[in-house]
């Protein structure tokens, strides 16, 4: 059922007919009685998992069930940053796999996800932070990543609007730069994977909430949903902030707390910044979308929270920090703020792999950094589900690391100074 390809020519052709003949990007099927595998959660990670199950593992009799509308969770709420310059080897492995897949994803999916490798700058604003990023730089270089430290002068060249006053509260001592990091169009990632998976026969079933996980002894045998029972021997749970709710149905207590991550955009303005800047010491990061909005990430509310509402305290500090970092934004205005429910693990790194229940797989804990991982996450999770064993890259992210003390702690890069 190959869909016609998107191209400038297909647009021209359809224009002649006032665009009345465009085919659907994906079907809206009713659930079948049984599938070889069912992915719970049609966010970026879930849809990518389905896509690679079909593409790499030829499992096409599968479904993705989604409580609401596809891509409506954190995939459509994040600040679209893509980078892989992490410190720990397992993190580097999965985030770089994801980043490299992003490079060709538009062509792979025949859907423009607008991957824009405009560069990611991580500012160093204390001697300690400078040393920490120098360490990361050495580790990344020896792992084969294309990253480097840049001088304050270079920072100013890359981001002319940055505050380079050497006497400001936290002067810029340098920055860690990943030139092939950047941003993508978050909705398009979900839509592109959905269209691609649908094209290979995957059923994407929206408005279908899982209300129970059927087990036979220690094995999964099916799902109870608001649209009836679906038999299946393999279930992949990819529900981010709501993973606890779903895993509780299988009696698996997760090492997860759900919090609300704050984000906002400014009104659209003409281009002022052509890369992503992260200022960890003062807690702010910013990029500019193609529409011209400044895209800004705030902190998380300090308590468990499923409300998806914008709150204020988390934003206030971010804005103070960004005005000090980019003084010209003071007279720009906040257009829209919102929250996303993020799933935070004990070491702030994700969980990918098998669970105590046979046939039940989980992919969660991406916390505040999931978007950048979508293609890699889907790739290794699909492999894990298809072969019923962790993909080599997924091994380190297994749940039992919390039993063994085998943490993957990225906060290390910003450990407390003296």
């Amino acid at each position, binding site marked *: 059922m190959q869909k016609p390809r*998107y*191209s400038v020519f297909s*647009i021209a052709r*359809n*224009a002649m007919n*006032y*665009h009345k003949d*465009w085919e*659907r990007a994906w*079907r*809206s099927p009713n659930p079948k009685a049984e599938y070889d595998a069912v992915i719970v959660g049609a966010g970026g990670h879930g849809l990518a998992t389905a896509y690679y199950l079909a593409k790499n593992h030829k499992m096409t009799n599968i479904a993705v069930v989604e409580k609401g509308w596809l891509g409506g969770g954190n995939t459509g709420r994040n600040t679209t940053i893509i980078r892989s310059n992490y410190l720990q080897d397992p993190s580097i492995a999965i985030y770089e796999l994801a980043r490299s897949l992003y490079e060709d994803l*538009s*062509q792979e999916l*025949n859907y*423009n996800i*607008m991957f*824009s490798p405009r560069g990611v700058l991580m500012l160093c604003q204390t*001697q300690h932070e*400078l*040393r*920490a990023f*120098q*360490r990361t730089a*050495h*580790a990344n*270089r*020896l*792992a*084969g990543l294309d990253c480097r430290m840049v001088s304050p002068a270079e920072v100013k060249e890359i981001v002319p609007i940055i505050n380079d006053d050497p006497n400001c*509260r*936290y002067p810029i001592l340098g920055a860690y730069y990943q030139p092939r990091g950047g941003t993508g*169009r978050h909705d398009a990632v979900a*839509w592109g994977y959905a269209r691609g998976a649908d094209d290979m026969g995957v059923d994407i079933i*929206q408005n279908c909430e899982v209300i129970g996980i059927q087990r036979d002894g220690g094995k999964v045998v099916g799902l109870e949903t608001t649209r009836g029972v679906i038999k299946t021997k393999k279930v992949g749970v990819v529900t981010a902030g709501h993973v606890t709710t779903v895993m509780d149905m299988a009696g698996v207590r997760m090492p997860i707390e759900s919090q609300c991550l704050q984000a906002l955009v400014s*009104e*659209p303005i*003409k281009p002022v910044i052509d890369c992503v800047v992260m200022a960890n010491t003062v807690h702010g990061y910013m990029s500019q979308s*193609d*529409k*011209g909005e400044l895209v800004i990430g705030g902190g998380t509310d300090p308590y468990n929270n499923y*409300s998806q509402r*914008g709150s*204020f305290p988390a934003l*206030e500090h971010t*804005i*103070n*920090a960004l005005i*000090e970092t980019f003084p*010209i934004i*003071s007279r*720009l*205005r*906040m*257009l829209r*703020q919102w929250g996303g429910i993020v799933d935070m693990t004990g070491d702030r790194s994700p969980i990918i792999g098998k669970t105590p229940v046979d046939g039940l797989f989980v992919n969660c804990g991406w916390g505040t950094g999931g978007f950048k991982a979508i293609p890699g996450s889907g790739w290794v999770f699909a492999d894990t589900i298809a072969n019923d064993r962790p993909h080599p890259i997924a091994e380190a992210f297994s749940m039992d690391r919390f039993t*063994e*003390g085998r*943490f993957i702690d990225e906060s290390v890069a910003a450990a*407390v100074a*003296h």
Partner: protein
Amino acid sequence: MTGKPYRLAEGGSRIDRAKRVTFSFDGRDIQGFAGDTVASAVLASGQKVFGRSYKYHRPRGVMGLGSEEMNALVGVGADAKREPNLRANQVEIYQGMVSESQNRWPSLTFDIGGINNKLSRFFPGGFYYKTFMWPKAFWKHVYEPVIRKAAGLGKAATGRDPDNYEHMHIHADVLVAGGGLAGILAAEAAAKAGAKVVLMDENPVLGGIADLTAGMINGACVADWLAPKIAELKAMPNVHVLVRTTVVGHYHHNFLMAAERVADHDPSLLAAGAPRHRLWKIRASHVIMATGALERPIAFANNDRPNVMLASAVRALVGRYGVSPGTNGVVFTNNDDAYLTAFALKKAGVNVQVVDSRARPDGELVARAQEEGIAVSLSSVISAVEGTLAVKAVKIAAYRKGQGRVITEKRVECDFIASSGGWNPVLHIWAHNAGKIKFDDGLQSFRPDTHNAAMTAVGAANGTMSVEATIAEAQAAGEAAAKSVLKKAKAVKAEKLEVKEPRRAALESLWFAPATGAYNEGNKHFIDFQNDVTAADLELAQREGYESVEHTKRYTTYGMATDQGKTSNINGLGVLSEATGKTIPQIGTTTFRPPYTPYSFGAIAGSLTRELFLPVRRTAVYQWHIDKGATWEPVGQWRRAYTYSGAGETKHQSITREILAVRNKVGLLDASTLGKIEIKGPDAAEFLDRMYTNTFSTLKVGKCRYGLMANELGFLTDDGVTVRLAEDHFLMHTTSGGADRIAAWLEEWLQTEWTHYKVFVTPVTEQWSQFGLAGPKARDVLAKLAPDFDVSNEAFPHMSFKVGKLGGFPVRVFRISFSGEQSYEIATPAGYGLSLWKAFLEAGAEFGIEPYGTEALHVLRAEKGYIVIGDETDGTTTAEDVGMGGMVSKKKADFIGKRSMEQAELKRAGRKQLVGLLTEDPNEVLPDGAYAVAEVKDKPPMKMIGQVTSTYMSPTLGRSIAMALIENGRARMGETISFPLEGGKVVRAKITDTVFYDKDGGRINA
């Protein structure tokens, strides 16, 4: 062009014709009157085009009455003071104001981007997802830059904002959002019942659209009847009224944000010290939402042309500013309200006719139009608009509800259109925090339903459109709110009112007016004007499967412009409803997100910018450090002296000088930032044994002991020296960065886990200035300062403590060392800190004393192999890893972190262990954080076996030294390992133990 005929001979309730005001728009001087807005003044000057649209760059003019304006966005101010994307109809003009149109190049009337419009057929909604994919590199380097340049509306300021901002907190029994008829009456009722009331309105004057409303109260028109009430309300002692203040967001527990534009209308206030904006943080016991309603446009072909306006906007131009958009207008409506605009125009001598989509509207206003001789075409719609930079004519077509095509149409010349598709209640703050809304068939729009928070909606915001009902509703709500909040509310006696208002005919929804030509083809029926989203785009999204309204929104960007869908939301749902056959409630609506209207980042930051951005903590010697030319190292919020570079001295030189001073003579360090915590009680010793990995219950009174702290994961988090002041009394030192954290940590365990312990914990960090006096001459300096203070090695050995007087100074003296030299730390109350510091320098002068900074400190301790938490440890490092396993008590049954230290991974063989490194070339200093590899390859990846944690050129040893965490390091003594650096260079270093200097510790105990 002269003002005529657009500025009417008379009228204009908001303007003062005696006061002329000159400002500039796109470099052209424009004369208006005090009270004018940029929109009214520029329109009065005859200019209709205010900007270009987002995607197609179509010329656009003023459309709205207030904050719903989506087309006429202007930039105000220049350079560092430029503020983009302001609504021209809300910007009050002042003498000398500089304003500009946006998103056009080179000019408004001739805009290159306009080419997009010619090609618009090739840019349907979401087109960019389908193309620009080849060749791959072109997205970032060709397509995207073009798109980015074309998008983005206004330009940002070019420098640091010179103005001030601030926050203000306020608590109200009743917050009333909106100062129209409903808001005023609700506030009055609540206030008379005794409530503390705050009323906020976004406009410069109260009254809302009372002046644009039909009806009489006690014989007066609504606005006139309301005027004295407003004055009375403002005078009440328990009422605070704010204008130019928009309630922008509603959050949990009735917390609201309001943005006050204090000085935008009058820059002289800034000079007088006023903030430009003030952000109000409001906690209200009850919220009354009286935010009114916004008129919605009608989707007809080319409904975006300059001088196509909302009927209410035209009415306001005439009534408030004495301005008419033209001389010959057409009112296009599906409801009675727009007839008021026709009457206002006729009264002002403007030629006008009405086009009404309804077949038989039987309202009194329709009848009156006929009486007044205003031509009314019923069962008719506007099927086409002629003119590009301005309306030249319209086509009027016969219409039956549900009809999709035009059968007959006639051409009518006109120069403006006033359209009304009905009114939408302003629900934003109701919906921001999960208030429920419901669809109202009469309004063909949503209205408030239930809410968890204590909030009531009144008047038009509640879908109540009649004056009489609004009055009753508002007064009842105000009184009820007061009653619900106050223990004892006063009774409010209702006044007798006689209200007359015209009987109205029902509105008939009109989501799409059929157009000349086949359905939809070649015509643009705009739904979201600013983002150039047409009815066709919404239908396309549906066809392609983007069925959820959220998908439609994101795919077409409908509702995502700076007006956040104020006018497009319902119209879009109407179009989707007709396209899908679902009802509007079935389709549902997108989430309302704060803020209601955009407000400045400056206001969000308030006063916490520049010198107030993140506090700087100062020791008592702070200014002295500055005067001595210190550069800073930030530690937590403290600033510590990093090094004191003298004239013509590099940092490296001064650091070396400072180190040698300590090694050979004596140095003075400001260590005041170290955390100091007093811990007292019968269980204090046992408590410390729980907190530290090593034991303190065995410590003798008057003695010091170095302690290690781990977290429950078993990783090191802090260290420091603790002294036993008395059997039940300890003084703990923590790292500077850890002081507050550790104090809270101790409190937490006492309060939540070992609640039976009798222990008090009192942080005293700031009470003391504390100075390190280190070096072979340290004792001499002390002795000279205070001959009667016995500092002999016998009386005062290493790791002991004395309290007493040093000359006139009350002091606590610790003989401890972080440098490996004979060393003392002397603490005195902070008020005496500076003079004791100076006293040391004076007394030490003859011994060659020199102040030294944190970098010298770090080199000195590295030479001795002392660790720094945060350098040698990184949050995943155990005591065993850094070779301090001996400080982890085997005897104690339990202490924080003990159990986790037994987890498999923490005991694993081959973990990274702290070792010393000596590079083969003694002049080669390893870079910070450099990684060693198992085997050097010609290109990555290479297997890494550990990293440098501290690395320095040691002036004492005359060679480089380093410490590193290396896999299985302690078993590799003497082994040489390789560090591949950038550019292929490889540094080789021998693994040694970590103590490079004075291994037997002779100097410490000297």
